[in-house]
């Protein structure tokens, strides 16, 4: 499906249509609301259909591990549509984090064993480690690994684990005497205690995980771990940016629709320049977010830009745009905008959450400044 940057091929268009139609039919707003209030917070059957029937949960995964081998841009298109529909599911934990981490590993056996289940949607994965600032922060690792009886035991607590309550597969960076290595905890051992958290964004769950002498297997050594996690954090940032574009686009569309149909003072409110011009600014924000997000996807896919720079650009622009657009949507809908019944608040909460997960805008700006300003020679 690859092409030159921003050349959205026909295949990508068909993929988008496929996922959009699926979401419209299988996850319209009322389903989202029911699902987000359910105990699990997502519908495993729906997730499995995305993975198995549609085959869109591993498009950036090589075929050898059950993936579609279609590249990150294609995966971004899928995530954009899932974000547009606010589909409840382990997008962040599984799709954006666990899968890229596993993909980046050198150990073939681990990939062959664990990726197919995630890609098919049968299993949920996540990572419990300091990646949520958008880079891998080895100093922030709170879990310790000790060798015992020929295996490893993990101890420590990790907060804000995306999809942490539902995960069948938890990747855990942990401190060993030799440095930080990556471990894998499978199933639901009693030594892994999960405390579900009430999230601002009702459509996306987090949990706090506590590991108490929890058995685990090591899947990457002290040299590989940081590199694998760093690489995965970039992929995750780009996919989250695509999700933000999807949500922002919906908010823009709903707002334009509202402004065209809502009459006050005898005219559609969209004919007032205060409303109209803010819509124009929303469009600019969405378009810039789309450009930055897909530039990120293409760069990570084809190597056309510094991946660290492209990922931070994608995440920073998309975060700011989504928050700005969702906030404007609420404002321009008036009272309806902040009512529980209208979905704008669900998008706003997703936007507010996405904006700090995987690195705040300020953090990404700081990284961009380091690459563009601090490194630049005087002319």
């Amino acid at each position, binding site marked *: 499906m690859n092409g030159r940057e921003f050349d959205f091929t026909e295949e990508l268009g068909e993929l988008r249509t496929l996922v959009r139609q699926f979401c419209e039919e299988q996850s319209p707003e009322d389903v989202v609301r029911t699902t987000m209030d359910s105990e699990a917070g997502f519908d495993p059957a729906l997730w499995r259909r995305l993975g198995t029937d549609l085959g869109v949960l591993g498009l950036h995964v090589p075929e050898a591990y059950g993936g579609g081998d279609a590249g990150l841009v294609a995966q971004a298109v899928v995530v954009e549509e899932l974000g547009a529909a606010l589909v409840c599911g382990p997008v962040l934990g599984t799709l954006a984090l666990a899968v890229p981490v596993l993909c980046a590993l050198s150990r073939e056996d681990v990939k062959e064993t664990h990726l197919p289940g995630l890609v098919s949607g049968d299993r949920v994965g996540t990572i419990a480690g300091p990646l*949520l600032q958008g880079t891998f922060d080895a100093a922030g690792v709170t879990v310790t690994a000790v060798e015992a009886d020929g295996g490893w035991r993990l101890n420590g607590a990790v*907060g*804000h684990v995306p999809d942490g309550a539902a995960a069948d597969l938890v990747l855990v960076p942990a401190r060993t005497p030799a440095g930080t290595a990556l471990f894998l905890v499978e199933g639901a051992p009693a030594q892994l205690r999960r405390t579900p*958290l*009430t*999230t*601002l*964004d*009702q459509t996306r769950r*987090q949990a706090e995980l506590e590991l108490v002498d929890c058995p685990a297997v090591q899947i990457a050594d002290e040299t590989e771990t940081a590199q694998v996690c760093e690489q995965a954090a970039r992929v995750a940032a780009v996919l989250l940016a695509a999700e933000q574009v999807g949500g922002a686009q919906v908010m823009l569309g709903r707002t334009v629709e509202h402004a065209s*149909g*809502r*009459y*006050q*003072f*005898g*005219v559609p*409110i969209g004919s*007032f320049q*205060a*409303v109209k011009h803010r819509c124009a600014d929303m469009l600019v924000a969405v378009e810039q977010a789309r450009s930055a997000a897909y530039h990120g996807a293409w760069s990570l896919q084809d190597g056309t830009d510094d991946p660290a720079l492209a990922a931070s650009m994608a995440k920073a622009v998309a975060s700011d745009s989504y928050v700005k657009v969702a*906030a404007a949507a*609420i*404002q321009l809908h*008036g*009272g*309806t*905008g*902040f*009512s*529980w*019944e209208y979905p704008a*608040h669900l998008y*706003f*909460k997703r936007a*507010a*959450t996405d904006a*700090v*997960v995987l690195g*705040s805008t*300020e953090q990404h700006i700081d990284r961009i400044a380091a690459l563009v300003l601090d490194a630049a020679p005087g002319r």
Partner: protein
Amino acid sequence: MTTATATTAETVEELARTVVRERPPATTPTAELMGAWYDAGLAWVHFPRGLGGLEAPRMLQTAANRVLKEAGGPEPRTVNIIGYGIVAGTIVRYAPPELAARLLRPLATGEELWCQLFSEPGAGSDLAGLATRAVRDGDDWVVTGQKVWNSLAHLARWGILLARTDPDVPKHKGLTYFLVDMQSPGVEVRPLRQITGRAQFNEVFLEGVRIPDAMRLGDVGAGWAVSLSTLSDERVGLGDRVPARGAGSIGEALALWAARPDRQTPVLRDRLARLWLRSESHRLTVERAKVAAGHGVFGPEAAITKLVASELNQQVYEFCQELLGLEGTLYESYTSVLEDDDSPTPYQRKFLRSRAATIEGGTSEIQRNIVAERVLRLPADLRNDKNVPWRDVPRS
């Protein structure tokens, strides 16, 4: 009114001290205390005697309330927030004395709470475009329509209602103002949940609700003028209480900043200092306007206050959310539906709540229009709904 000029701060304070001496707030039920307060003419000192007042200058109210507060009594308006804030003045101006007498005492004591039934789903910024119909039937009016953003409607005994009695005249001219008994058949109140998960407002459905013509305030078709008097009361005293430096939302941001040294960066420090500076210059502006006016800020100038304060409120809580980082992605609970303003409100809820600040009570867009047209005297928007029968004005 001959005695009015004779009433001084001293006489008002003396009357107030007598009330709190005879009925110590700590041990007297609020309704009894406020009943005595009303009977002493202290509920609204500028009202007529017998209707909760003393025909005294309005500015003396502050002295009375201070005595009550120092004795441990309530801030009167908290007893019946809409009743004190916007209803009482309209009643005393427009209701016949007997009706006023019947309504004002239980309003003052808090035994009969009030709510406001003005806005509609189709009439927000354009309030005068509202569609709730009132049709004359004998001595009654029969009202059908839907109202929205009605705080306290689920607890209120009475509502002030604006309804359309003549759709064939331009929109401002076909409105009439009523007092509606919320226990009447056909009144249905439904809680309206918001972004925070709480229900601070209600929707009110009116289905063939009968209102005696005696409960009409002002002439038929003169409802807009009456409602302006109500809305003007709402704005009075916005600037009465200028907060202290560092109070309010900016104060909370400063507290959060001090509590999170690990999250401090030079860039966030610059942003917070700028927010503090804007809050403080706004506070100084309100203080200056108050000195210039000799009292509270109201009328079009109040639109500036509302505009700036609401936008600052949003920006301050956006900052707090950024300072909280990942902690800001968690929430207390969405399952508790009822508003409970006594519990300490977490930052996340205030962050969500702040989105409404620039909408409720007139959107920022409307406030900017008011500031521009009524303070700067810039020309009005071109309009197509003037001098047109309401029936013919395009609607959603």
